C-alpha cells in the first residue's frame, strides 16, 4: 500500500490547494469585516457558471473566459456586500451570518432556475490531462491549482506586507475606528475585501470545475471544507488557511486510502476537533482575539 503513497500525496496536496484558495477568501472577510460568509462556496459555483456561459454560450476564448469570470465575480462581490452585508454592518455578527445563509440559498437556486439542473464540463487549463512522473500521474489541472495557490500566497504576502493598500487593509482589519481616524476609507477597504474575496472564490471555482464539473451543488462541497481549513489553521490567519487546506486535503486522501472510504469527509473534521482540543487557537494562532 506504500506504493500508492506518492500519488496520494500529490492528489492530497492538489485537492488541499483547492480548499486553501477557497479558504483564503473566507479568511479575508473574517479579518476585514468580521463576516463569516456562509455563501463563500457559492462564489465558486457562480464563478464556474459564469465561465461556462462565457465559454460555451458566448464563445469567448478560454483564457478570456477564465479571467473574465474572476473579474466579473469581483464586481459581484461588491454587489453582494451592498445587498447582504452593508445594510447590516452595524448589527450583530449573527444577523450578518443569517443574511449570508439567505444568500447561500438564493444563489444556487437562482442558478438552478435560470440555467437548469444539468451538470456540465469545462476543459482544463491545458489540453493534456497530465503526465507520468515515476509512479505518479501528475494531473495537469491539479498542478495548475497548486501553482496558482502558491502564486496567490505570494501575491497575498506582497499585497498585504509591501503595499500601502495592504497596510490600509491590515489597519482596517485590526481597528476600524483607528483606521478611520487615520483617514483610511473603511468602507472602501471593506468593499475591496468583498470583491477580492469573491474573486478568490471564483478562482477556486473555475480551477476546480474541470475536476469536479460545474454543478449547482459544487459550492456546498467546497465551502464546508474551506471553513474547516480556516479553523484548523487558526481563525482569521492567512498562512493558517493555506496550511489548514492542505492538511484537510491530505487527511481526506490518506484517510480514505488507508482507513475508510465512507468516512472520508470525517477525517478533516476529526483533525479539526483534535487541533481545537490540543491547540485551541489553531496552528497559526488566532488573530481576532477577544479583548479582555
Amino acid at each position, binding site marked *: 500500500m506504500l506504493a500508492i503513497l506518492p500519488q496520494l500525496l500529490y492528489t492530497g496536496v492538489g485537492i488541499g490547494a483547492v480548499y486553501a484558495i477557497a479558504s483564503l477568501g473566507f479568511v479575508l472577510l473574517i479579518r476585514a469585516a468580521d463576516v463569516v460568509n456562509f455563501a463563500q462556496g457559492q462564489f465558486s459555483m457562480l464563478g464556474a457558471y459564469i465561465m461556462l456561459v462565457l465559454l460555451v454560450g458566448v464563445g469567448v476564448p478560454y483564457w478570456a473566459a477564465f479571467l473574465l469570470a474572476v473579474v466579473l465575480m469581483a464586481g459581484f462581490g461588491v454587489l453582494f456586500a451592498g445587498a447582504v452585508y452593508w445594510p447590516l454592518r452595524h448589527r450583530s455578527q449573527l444577523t450578518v451570518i443569517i443574511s449570508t*445563509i439567505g444568500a*447561500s440559498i438564493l444563489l444556487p437556486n437562482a442558478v438552478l432556475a435560470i440555467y437548469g439542473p444539468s451538470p456540465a464540463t469545462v476543459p482544463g487549463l491545458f489540453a493534456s490531462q497530465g503526465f507520468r512522473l515515476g509512479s505518479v500521474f501528475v494531473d495537469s489541472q491539479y498542478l495548475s491549482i497548486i501553482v496558482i495557490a502558491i502564486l496567490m500566497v505570494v501575491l497575498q504576502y506582497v499585497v498585504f506586507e509591501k503595499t500601502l493598500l495592504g497596510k490600509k487593509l491590515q489597519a482596517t482589519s485590526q481597528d476600524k475606528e483607528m483606521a478611520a481616524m487615520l483617514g483610511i476609507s473603511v468602507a472602501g477597504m471593506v468593499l475591496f475585501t468583498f470583491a477580492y474575496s469573491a474573486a478568490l472564490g471564483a478562482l477556486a471555482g473555475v480551477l476546480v470545475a474541470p475536476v469536479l464539473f460545474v454543478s449547482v*451543488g459544487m*459550492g456546498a462541497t467546497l465551502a464546508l471544507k474551506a471553513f474547516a481549513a480556516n479553523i484548523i489553521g487558526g481563525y482569521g490567519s492567512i498562512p493558517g488557511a493555506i496550511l489548514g487546506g492542505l492538511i484537510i486535503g491530505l487527511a481526506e486522501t490518506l484517510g480514505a486510502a488507508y482507513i475508510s*472510504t465512507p468516512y472520508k469527509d470525517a477525517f478533516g473534521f476529526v483533525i479539526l476537533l483534535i487541533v481545537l482540543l490540543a491547540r485551541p487557537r489553531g496552528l497559526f494562532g488566532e488573530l481576532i482575539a477577544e479583548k479582555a
Partner: protein
Amino acid sequence: MTGINRRAMLLGTAAALAAPAIIARAAETIRIGVVSPETGAAAESGQYMRNGINLALDAINEKGGVLGRKLEIVVADDQTTNPGAVLAFSRLASDHSIVAFIGSIRSTQVQAMAPGVLKTAKPMMIGGTDPKLTHQGNRWLFRCRPNDTYSAKTIAAYGVQTLGRKKIAMIASTDAFGTGGREALTSELKALGITPALTLGYANQQADFTPEVLQIRSANPDLITSYFTYETDLGVFAKQLRQLGVRTTWLGSPSIVDTAALELAGPALYGTYGVADYAVNASPTSKAYAAAYEKRFGKVPDNQSSWAYDATNVLAIALANAKSTAPEAIRTAILGIQGYKGAEGTYDFDQNGDGLHGYSVVQNQNGKINFIKYVEFPKPS
C-alpha cells in the same frame, strides 16, 4: 458554505408542493399525483421524469384519454430529500381527487414515502430499484423498473459467466440505493462462489476519487462493478480511473449509461459495460420511444424518463381495464398486466408489484450505447 442549496429547508419542503389550486375541471379529468425532484441534487432527474410522463400523457390524451376522461398530472417537488418526499406525498395524498401516484426513481425517497402510501391506500408507481421496497408487505407500490436483485443477478451472471471474470472489485455509494445494490450483488456473487476482492463505499458528492481508484489498482481486479448514484461522482471516478492507468473491464449499474454521465465523463467511459433497464436498441418499443423522445426533447432518452413513460402507460391501461378509479380495482388491474411491451421491457407484474424481471447488458462504444443482450429471469411466483 452550506449545502442548503440542495435542501434549502426541511420544512420548506412544503414549498415544493407545487399543487395548483383545486380546479373545477377536476371531475372531468383523472388526476395522477407525481412526486419528483424538481430542486436539489437530483433536480435533473426530475426533469427527465416529467418529460417521460408528459410524452405518455399527451399520447393518451390525444386518443381521448381513459374511461372517456383525460389524464392530468399534479407535480410535487420532493427536493431530493426524504423529509421533502414525505411532505410532498402527504400534500398530494390529501387531495382526494388524485387516484394514483407516480413516485421517485430514488429508493431512499420511496422508502421514506412508503408508510404514507400504505396509509393512503392508493397505488404508486415507483422507479427506485432497492429490492426491499416491494418486499416488505406494502401492497400499493408497483415498480416499473427491474429491481436491483435483477441488476445484481445480471452483473454477476454476465461478469462471471459470460466474461469469465473471477477477481471482482465493487464500489458503491453509501446511500440506500448504493447499499442495497452492494448487498444484492455480494449475495449474487456468493451464489456463484465468489467473494469480492475489494468492496468500497463512498459518500455522495465527492470532489476526488484518487484513494478509491488507487485501492482498486492495488487490488488488481479483473472486473470493476459499481453502483453510483450521482453522475458527477461517476464522472470524477471514471476520469481518475483512466488517468491513473486502470484499464480493467468495468460493468456498472444503470447510471453508467445515463445521458448525463455520458456527457460528463466522455471518453473515460468508452468500452465500459453497463446493465440497463432501458436501452435504445433493446426492442422495437424502446426504439420507438427513443425516436419520439428525441423528436420532442432533442436528446436521447435514458431510464430516468423511460420508466416514468411506462409508469404512465401502465396506469392508463390499468385504469382502462379496471373500468374504475377505485384503488382496489386499479391494483388488481395493474397486477393483471402481463406481456405489456413498454419502453423498458415486457411487463409481467408479480404479486410483489414488480413489473420487470431482467436487464439489458449494453456497452459504451465510443460514446454510443450498444445493446448486447437482454437477460431475463423467471418472475417469482
